[in-house]
């Protein structure tokens, strides 16, 4: 499942500080959960490497704020790539 996989990437990017179940259950933004700038940089690199999508932090600001935002962005852009 994409959502679980992205949560795993968030956890890895945080150096294990954030646990996958907590990320999946969070009812708040990723920064509010404790995703730091450093974690974001690693996370975006990991997402781009794994899914081949280009995350534009500036023109798609909502995409990186929440787990579901990331999942929606990745799903939308990988679909577009395939079609």
């Amino acid at each position, binding site marked *: 499942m994409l959502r679980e996989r992205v949560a795993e990437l968030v956890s890895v990017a945080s150096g294990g500080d954030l646990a996958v179940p907590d990320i999946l259950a969070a009812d708040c933004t990723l920064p509010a959960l404790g995703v730091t*700038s450093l974690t974001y*940089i690693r996370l*975006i690199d990991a997402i781009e490497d794994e899914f081949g999508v280009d995350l534009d*932090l500036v023109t798609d600001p909502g995409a990186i704020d929440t787990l579901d935002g990331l999942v929606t962005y990745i799903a939308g852009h990988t679909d577009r790539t395939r079609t």
Partner: protein
Amino acid sequence: MSGWKRAVAVPFTGQRDGEGPMTWGQRHIWRLTEWLDDGDPYFNMAWTLAVPGRPGLDRVLGALRALLERHESLRTTWEGRTQRITRSGTLTVDLYEAGDRRPLALAKELAEELAAKGFRYDSELPMRCALVLADGQPRAAAFAFTHMAVDAWSLDVIASEWRPLIAGEQLSAPACQPLDLTGLERDCDRELRYWRSHLERVPQRLVDREIEPEEPRYVRIGMESAAAGVAARAIARRCSVSTTSVLGTACATVMADALGRRTAVMQWIVANRHQERTRSMVGTMTQDGLFVLDLPDAPDQGFPAAVRAGHRQALAAYRHACYDPYAMRALRDDCERARGGPIDLSAYFNDGRIVADWPNLPDGDLTELAAKTRTFFVGAWPHVDGTVFFATGQATHTCQLYLLVDTAHLPRETAYAMLAGVEQLLIKNAVKEP
């Protein structure tokens, strides 16, 4: 009486020697040194460490040996865009007796002396060291490094290893050395695309007016404001961003306002250490990131929204700050040709705090704290590569913020007003709801 006693040799033998192209971080500094005369010490870093406990001279010399053996950057020379690591060699360490001087104070003076002379990049070890003794016991170490070998992050790495190495602990090897990076630094197309997208549209001019400059022309002032720290922390918490993003956005906002701009264009100094493998590496990785922020029409309107946007811009700047500086120069030349003139990127922001978020800030009312804010003159220089340069200090009990300005464009009183403006903007937005 204090004074020189004798020199001792510290022989070292590392795991390997080697040769390869300079890393991008090394090229970044190298490119800057090419503008300087041979022997210019501008990119030297003076630094000191206290010697903990009473370990004896042999243990301290052993720690120095271990540093040289662990970190290839400390036994590297450079020539013609090539880095060359020597496996073995000898570091000569001068010993001084502190006498009636405080050892660390004497070490600071010695470090400045060691750093006052340029390094011979092609033949000299990139590190010089002297030890200060009191009653025959080493108490402080004075260092000079070339910035080709270390950056501020590296100094923190060395500081963290110093005590355990003196204690004789065996540390695991660093995950990466600069020579290993060259195999990874192949392509920076993504970074160049990011910079091009901005360089094609950012305002070309940073400043419009010229005024009679001071002599020396470049003036640095400072501010110590616990109120700014408390306020920045409150805003960071509310906006779920870092205090770096808050402070950087405040500086960008105030600068743009002082210059009559609605887009702030700055280069942010980026450590480039987000990859796990580079976090324990001694080397130079710092490069410039490009931060571009469109601001609301009035500087004190919508600051929290600007902070959130600034945070995203900062992330974008961080992600695109590792590149081949020569390729970047070619890109800038290309963009400047296409736009018919230079693009002024001489505004900078450097948050070099090693400890984040000022953990020792006092409690108290912001107005009362602000009454204790002080501003001061730091120094003046005839030439600096920067028109506006904001930088943080390392204090953990107050927000130390420095500002260097080119007085040919911004008078000194405007610089003071800008620092005060940063403080006021933060305080105002810390106490009101977004």
